[in-house]
């Protein structure tokens, strides 16, 4: 049994139901993709406020345009393409003004606004970001093209071919970007004093723990 196909089939079925006005299907589609879309936005935009805005925008746009989803791509691919475009648009629209950038730089170092997280009680979680400072700083310093590629592939676990589809570039281009992005991340980590452990990357990478699609419980370990 190919789980990938099964998941996509279930997406397709949900899309069909959603189109025919089944609100539960819309809810289910949302829940299956919420965390990945949100993390895509979070890691490419760098702060949770913008990420929530963009994720919201992307989902609403997708659900309102379900009729134009022809099924030529997977729903997940199509949805993430919308999210990527929304994130790019957001970056275009909200180019920080010089003063803003200055303030941010003075405030939070190379990580920019991403590093600014409130501290407090009652669920105000300073570790909201879940990514260590040097890594996040390195990520936000990447050129956008590299950042989107490495987030899609190395963080969210999209296959290169699917990331290429989402970003509208060739698979080879994705790999080139991934190489440069990893190199930049590595350089930043070494500069931040992290030892290069020579660990086996392929064993540390674990995208099949079901965390990618929360709540559904449909995607488990093989």
């Amino acid at each position, binding site marked *: 049994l190919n789980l990938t196909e099964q998941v996509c089939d279930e997406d397709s079925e949900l899309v069909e139901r959603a189109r025919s006005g089944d609100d539960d299907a819309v809810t289910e589609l949302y829940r299956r993709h919420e965390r990945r879309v949100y993390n895509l936005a979070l890691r490419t935009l760098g702060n949770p406020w913008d990420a929530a805005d963009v994720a919201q925008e992307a989902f609403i746009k997708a659900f309102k345009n379900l009729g134009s989803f022809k099924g030529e791509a997977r729903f997940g691919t199509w949805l993430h393409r919308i999210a990527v475009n929304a994130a790019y648009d957001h970056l275009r629209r909200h180019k920080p003004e010089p003063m803003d950038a200055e303030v941010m730089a003075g405030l939070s170092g190379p990580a920019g606004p991403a590093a600014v997280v409130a501290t407090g009680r009652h669920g105000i979680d300073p570790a*909201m970001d879940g990514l260590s400072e040097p890594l996040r700083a390195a990520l936000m310093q990447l050129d956008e093209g590299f950042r989107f590629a490495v987030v899609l592939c190395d963080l969210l676990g999209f296959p290169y071919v699917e990331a290429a589809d989402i970003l509208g570039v060739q698979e080879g281009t994705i790999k080139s970007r991934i190489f440069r992005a990893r190199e930049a991340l590595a350089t930043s980590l070494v500069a931040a004093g992290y030892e290069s452990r020579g660990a086996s990357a392929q064993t540390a990478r674990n995208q099949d723990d079901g965390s990618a699609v929360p709540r559904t419980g449909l995607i488990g370990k093989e």
Partner: protein
Amino acid sequence: MVWGRKTNGSRASSGQGISGHLDEWARLAVDYVDGTVDDSTRSAIQAHLQTCPDCARRLTAQQSALAYFAQAPLVEAPEGLEARVLTQALRTAQAAPAVRPGARRRAARRSRALLSPAGPWLPALAGGAAVLALVLAMTISRDAGKLDATVTTAIDVFSSEASATQTPREASADLPSTTSPALAGSGSATLAPTDSAGTLTGANASLSAPPQPTGTYLQDRAAMVSGLSQASAPAYFFFDTKDGGLVTTEQAETVASELTAATGLRAMDQQLSSGVKAFAAFVPRGDSAAVVDLLRSLSDSLQLAVSLSLQPGEEVTSWAASMLQDKYSLAELSASPSHSPATTGWLYTTSTSPPTTYGTARAPKTMPLDEAGTHVLVVIFVAVRN
């Protein structure tokens, strides 16, 4: 394995020789790090790496970085996102209100709530030079809890076009009839009872004047940070309900206690309408974002909204001016990065004495901090409904 590309992603690279250094076979190197090259390619790469320490070091570093990156957990989407998405996605007929209802009304209600008893008012921190220096280090584990701090409002500055469609008379009709007497009794010499509509835009406009766009209440994070850091006059934060109404007394208490808990800043010992909470402090301009984020986090965790106004209207500013005469006794609220390696965050510090050093500029003791240009005087209001 569904999403992982190790099994269903790109085909294993194979049959390609390795020549030159890493940059010349970068795409193969990606596959090598991923572990998707075939045996012969892997052997060729490893043979090169044994003779080329530089390439070996770089690839090892990439492997480490990838391992580190891939360990990062996916963050939970903020609570409330689902509701907002589904509310809009599933809504069929009922259109979203273009403007927050009550956005204009609340300025007037707020003024009323602040102004009614207008009694003598003393900062709680009038103790002078005593240093509170309350440093709160909230240690919350990386993975603990979820991200209530994520502020999710998508509302920018209130639409000026939309608000322009509301005439002052219509707006004033929304006001309780007690508004005018309350304002008249506020002691503000510039206000006549019939001017109540002017309080809606904070411009003291007369009824015949066009309403001033209510673009002065900022909710967009970037706008708030930018506005605060560049403020040339006191900056005012307001806590309201998400639909623009006044909060309950209990909510105000919670805001105040949370703010005190997070920063050490005490609510002013004011004699205003019962339940109203107010804070004032000098914030270093460089800490604008940290303070904005704190207040946004706080409001979001309490399901409230916070907005920033640099021009809250004459009633509020004149009220503040009379209350903030003794600037020397006000505290400084500053933020410094948390040093916990596992987290990123801020420690907020409240001190009643000017900092001995702030950057390279030292504020003269004879000058309030905001007038030295290094700080912004921030006033935080939580007006309550009665």
